[in-house]
């Protein structure tokens, strides 16, 4: 059902309030009236209105002061100021303070209709922009999940099936396997795809920050909270919220989260107004949540509510046949982003990549390719451009001095024995580097 535009009329004259109330109701708007600024502000504390139509001259707090206070509560409010001819100057001041427009009493019916039409258009444009922005930022295609191994195809089939429903999903897998990519592929293939996909990395935030991030906060909820802020659950209305590293949330947040999942409503930090949101939740973790439930560190009821569908992303060592495709994908990705010609990879280098076990999974492979493109000869990735040989060299030394010597040698080679650049890379001054070169008897190849 389409959202009905709501209008709050603030005027001390009853006849004006009644006339506008009836006029807007005939147009199908949701209308409420307040006889003064105080009453209006108290109404606005408990619910939001799309448009506020306020008289500039009222006993007590005037329309301009009220506008400032409303803007402090919600800077996006659309406020239209009503004025008599005598107070047009004040109306201009109201415009400078952020009023959407002003209208002089008594209005021509067509002017009023036109003004409200413009405000309504503005509201729908803002909503559409937000949705489009989120779409551009977050839309991920299932084609971004690279691989044609049985393991990947199984995951993609699960994504396709689960995308059709709105059930909660937990994506498990080792670090670096691409859980976030899978999480993004689910909503982008579902009916929620034109609505926001909001991601939260739970592990990166403290408990209080996470609470404010998820539920939003009211102005003044804590030091520095100068404006009311929408939380991630509110932003995900109609769409999907992705909670990464769900295993890291505190027991208190587990309780809060369970309540939100059960009611689909919550209260902003420092507020008392219930906010509802229609979201789908997808979580990811590299931990065994069932083990955590048994140990008592993760709530069992929350686990079952989140774990309606489970998708396990396999580690790269279990799908080595995908490595050539992934290498090709990352070469294209990084050569394009660095504005370079596409490079190839020599057979021994690819073979070496296929033999490796990747404890850091796809992320580790991606980093290797990015590095090889940076340090390589810009035509072909060779085995020497990969970190394996250097690891071998490092592992053959035992003392700290030997290790330091090898490392300084590598940096000097990398920067063609440019002392200033090498010293900068090593975070030492030039004199220290000269002393080390002398100490280890390092020689320039030239």
């Amino acid at each position, binding site marked *: 059902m389409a959202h009905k535009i709501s209008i709050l009329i603030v005027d001390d*004259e009853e006849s004006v309030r009644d*006339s506008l109330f009836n*006029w807007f109701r*005939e*147009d199908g708007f949701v209308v409420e009236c307040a006889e003064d600024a105080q009453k209006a502000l108290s109404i606005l504390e408990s619910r939001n209105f799309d448009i506020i139509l306020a008289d500039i001259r009222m006993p007590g707090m005037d329309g301009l002061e009220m506008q400032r206070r409303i803007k402090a509560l919600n800077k996006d409010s659309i406020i239209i100021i009503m004025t008599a001819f005598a107070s047009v100057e004040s109306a201009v001041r109201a415009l400078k303070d952020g009023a959407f427009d002003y209208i002089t009493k*008594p209005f*021509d*019916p067509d002017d009023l209709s036109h003004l409200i039409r413009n405000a309504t258009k503005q509201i729908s444009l803002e909503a559409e922009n937000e949705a489009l922005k989120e779409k551009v930022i977050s839309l991920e295609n299932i084609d971004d999940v690279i691989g044609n191994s049985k393991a990947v195809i199984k995951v993609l089939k699960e994504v396709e099936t689960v995308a059709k429903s709105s059930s909660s999903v937990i994506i498990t897998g080792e670090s670096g396997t691409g859980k976030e990519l899978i999480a993004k592929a689910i909503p982008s293939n579902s009916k929620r795809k034109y609505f926001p996909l909001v991601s939260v990395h739970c592990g990166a935030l403290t408990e209080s920050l996470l609470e404010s991030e998820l539920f939003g906060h009211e102005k003044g909820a804590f030091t520095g909270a100068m404006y009311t802020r929408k939380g991630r659950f509110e932003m995900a209305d109609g769409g999907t919220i992705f909670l990464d590293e769900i295993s890291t949330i505190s027991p208190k947040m587990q309780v809060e989260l369970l309540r939100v999942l059960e009611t689909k409503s919550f209260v902003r930090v420092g507020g008392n107004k219930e906010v509802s949101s229609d979201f789908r939740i997808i979580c990811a973790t590299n931990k065994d949540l069932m083990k955590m439930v048994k140990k008592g560190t993760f709530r069992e009821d929350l686990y079952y509510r989140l774990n309606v569908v489970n998708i396990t992303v396999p580690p790269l060592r279990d799908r080595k046949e995908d490595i050539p495709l992934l290498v090709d994908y990352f070469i294209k990705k990084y050569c394009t982003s660095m504005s370079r010609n596409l490079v190839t990879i020599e057979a021994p280098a690819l073979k070496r990549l296929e033999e490796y076990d990747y404890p850091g999974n796809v992320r580790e492979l991606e980093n290797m390719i990015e590095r090889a493109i940076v340090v390589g000869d810009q035509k072909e990735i060779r085995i020497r451009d990969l970190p394996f040989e250097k690891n071998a060299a490092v592992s053959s030394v035992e003392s700290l001095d030997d290790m330091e010597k090898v490392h300084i040698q590598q940096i000097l080679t990398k920067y063609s024995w440019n002392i200033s650049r090498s010293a900068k890379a090593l975070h030492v001054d030039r004199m220290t580097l000269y002393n080390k070169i002398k100490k280890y008897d390092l020689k320039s190849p030239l």
Partner: protein
Amino acid sequence: MSLITPTILLINYGDFEKNFLQAIARDVDQEFHLPVSVEEGTTDLEPYFDSIRRQYNANGILKSMDSDSPSRYLKQLGLFRVDLFIPILTYIFGQALLNGPSGIASLYRLRNEVYGMAKDEDVLRERFTKVVIHELGHAFGLVHCHHPACVMRSSTYVEDIDQKSRHFCSQCRITLEKVLP
């Protein structure tokens, strides 16, 4: 016990000719599929006259109609010839509360002569019929409609009235049928 007749009443407060009102009553009957009665009415409009604006306050007139002895009719609409306003708007063609018992409509600003054009009785009757049906639509709970030809489309200029038909669109018709007896 209320004895409401399922009839729409048009009250002639504007000294309109009988034939003129009978024609409008027929059109209203066709749209609402309800019997329509026409009665002569008398009211003192002096208390509702604003000498500064030189117009009549529609809110006051409507209130006085509602406060008169309860109507025996399903809905009643007062027909006037005077220039109507509500405090916040420069003029109105008519007024009725959503789901209210009464409404009013005036012919004053529907006349071609007000806009410097030649008098046209047929156009005038057609416009007045549309305003009457529109206000009765509000009294039956209909809100403004975006369908360009629907009689419930909002009309702020007389030209807007000419653009629409005197009929309800299919959607408004469905809504109306649900509330008609």
